[in-house]
């Protein structure tokens, strides 16, 4: 299985979300699954700085970042970051509602926030690499 190889690579993670409570819950959920959350950001600028400094394997980006758009951030990560991390979009909205936008973006895939786990993230990254 290819995801095993990919899973071996995906260890360090950054979460970009403007909801502090969710950041805390997500961190504990992901770390219990073996995904190290090396940093969290609440804005686009913060996120880009963090990614440049920490060079994570995967970045989880919330679609709705207050007044900013998660999709724009995905484009900028892909275009500007030399780290080339995997990007996974997350949202409180269901995948069905945003599928058109997710598939149009360069993100590896989407995970509903209520279903967030290290395994779900690794699955999406693996599917995106296939």
């Amino acid at each position, binding site marked *: 299985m290819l995801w095993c190889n990919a899973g071996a690579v995906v260890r360090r993670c950054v979460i970009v979300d403007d909801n502090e409570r*969710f950041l805390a*819950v997500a961190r504990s959920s992901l770390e219990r699954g073996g995904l190290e959350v090396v940093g969290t950001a609440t804005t686009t600028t913060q996120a880009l700085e963090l990614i440049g400094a920490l060079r994570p394997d995967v970045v989880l980006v919330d679609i709705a970042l207050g007044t900013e758009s998660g999709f724009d951030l995905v484009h900028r990560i892909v275009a500007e970051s030399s780290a080339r991390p995997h990007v996974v979009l997350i949202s409180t909205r269901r995948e069905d509602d*945003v*599928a*058109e*936008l997710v598939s149009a973006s360069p993100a590896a895939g989407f995970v509903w926030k209520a279903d967030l*786990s290290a395994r779900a993230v690794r699955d999406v990254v693996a599917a995106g690499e296939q």
Partner: protein
Amino acid sequence: MWWRPESSEASGPLTGPPLQRWVGGALIGAGLIGLVTGLVAILNLHLPPRGLLILYLLAVVPVAIWWGAGPAALISAASVITFVLLIAPPQSEGTSVVAFAVFVATALVVAGLAAGLRRSVRRSQELAAEQSALRRVATLAAEGVPATELFVAVTREVGELCGADLTRLGRYEDGGTVIRVAAWTRMPARLPIGGRVPVEETRVARDVLRAGAPVRVSGTDATNGAGGPLARELGIRSSIGCPVVAGGRLWGVVVVSSRNPRAFPPETEERILHFTELLATAVTNAEASAALLRNADEQAALRRVATLAARGGADPGPVFRSVADQVGGLLGADCTSVLRFESDRTATYLAAHGWRDTRRRGPGARWRPETPSVIEQVQRTGRSARLDYASLGEQPPSLDGEDVTSTVASPIVVESRLWGSIGVASRTGPLPPDTEDRLVAFTEIVATAIANTESRAQLAASRARVIAAGDATRRRLERDLHDGAQQRLVSLALELRNVQAEVPDELSGLSAGLGRLAADVTAVLDELRELSRGIHPAILSEGGLGPALRTLARRSPVAVELTLRLDHRYADAVEVAAYYVAAEALTNTVKHANATHAELAVEEYDGELRLLVVDDGVGGAVPTGGTGLTGLYDRVEALGGTILVSSPGGGGTRIEVALPLRAG
């Protein structure tokens, strides 16, 4: 007949000056006496002289016919003397005297009869001429020739019939002026037509207006006034003015003039009146039919404008252009402008017609009306204004090169505020005195049309505001739900799973309970999601119309063939309207149409967003009875767009929508 004079030669021997008459009669009579005496001398060789005296009647009768009874009496006396001196000297005093007296008496009676006959013939000639002249005019009037042609005919016929040197026909105008509409002269002179002068300055026209009856002036009086220069030039010594009363009012005046102070016999007025009556009838008819025609033209023009105004949406431009075109033709003006007054005292051209300098008067061109100009006067006074230019030097710079001789403008008053003006200009003499009145009638309709357009625009704007406010509220509600309840429930669900994962294996009951809780929270989230999706489609705000419509098509239970040609985001109101049209149409298709296939096409074209929804269902959709279609009409029309629903029974449903993309 040998005595018939030239019909156009009004002054013959009978009517000539007395001295001339007597001298002429005496000379011709003397010649005739000579001829007769010669004849009598020859006959006297064979016949007794006394019976030959009667032959002198041959000299007396022609003189009586041509020069009247007076000269004839003189000739009969001269005949007797000649006879006595040359042919037969009296032999017996008594008998000779009696014979001569009988001859003279007979000669006088015959001369009187001959002169009377001559006068009767002449009078009947005149009557016949008058009758045929009247008949010619009546025929022209009946044929409905243009009024100007009829006027010229009347002046010519009256002039010839009365033996006048100059005949003029003037029409009284409102405002105390009289305008010359026709003139005739037997002399070589240029006759100006269309000259307009105050009535007070014309002697004959003024007196006729005051008296309402024929007026006769002679001597220097006849050359006073407006006809003055021309009358002086022609040497006019006597004039008669006769009123033309049409439709119960004094319409105009016929003035006949002559160089001869005694040219017009007493019955002349009566003869002219026969013509003025005919003229009045023709004028009344012509004015009535012209008024009818004009009224019909005006009505038609106004109807065209009103129809345009009623049909037009937010842009009244076509209405103004139509007004400019219609008014010019209707009022006989060469140029027309429709202007809107701005708060900074400038005026904006909205439409113009017939001007040479089209650049200066292009739609949207601004201009500060200069003093003096009719537009400036309307702007200042709010009332109609008129300026007639006698010379081009007096004109404001804006009329440079236009050769305009007369301008009239009237205000457009919209809901009791001075909104703008319609101006007309003529290059051929003054505009008619009723131009202001007719223009006012027009500006009122235009003002109504503008008011309608404005209230329509206001109505559409307020409808659009209501809908936009509703949309904003729904979007905020959806966002509040997302940022608040949904966010917290998502965190809660995830947290429950985290806790469940931490529960030791021996507490399997607790673990299962936590799992059910997490599942419940997820179920609540799903319900919330359905709710918020109905409030506002989040993807429309997030991703725009394209992704939103693709989501819509993907979720539809009926197969949707989607064609999108959109490359950017549009105004919220446009995107929301387009989305709801598509969503409502597809919902109808699914619920009512029993369709197997639908097409949804959206593209930007020619400044509009065009949307087409077609299905192959049962049709019969009607935009009444509170269906979603009614709401679509509201949304689309509030944006100044159009919606066309075609849904014949059994023929599928086709909805076409066009939404304007320009701002405002």
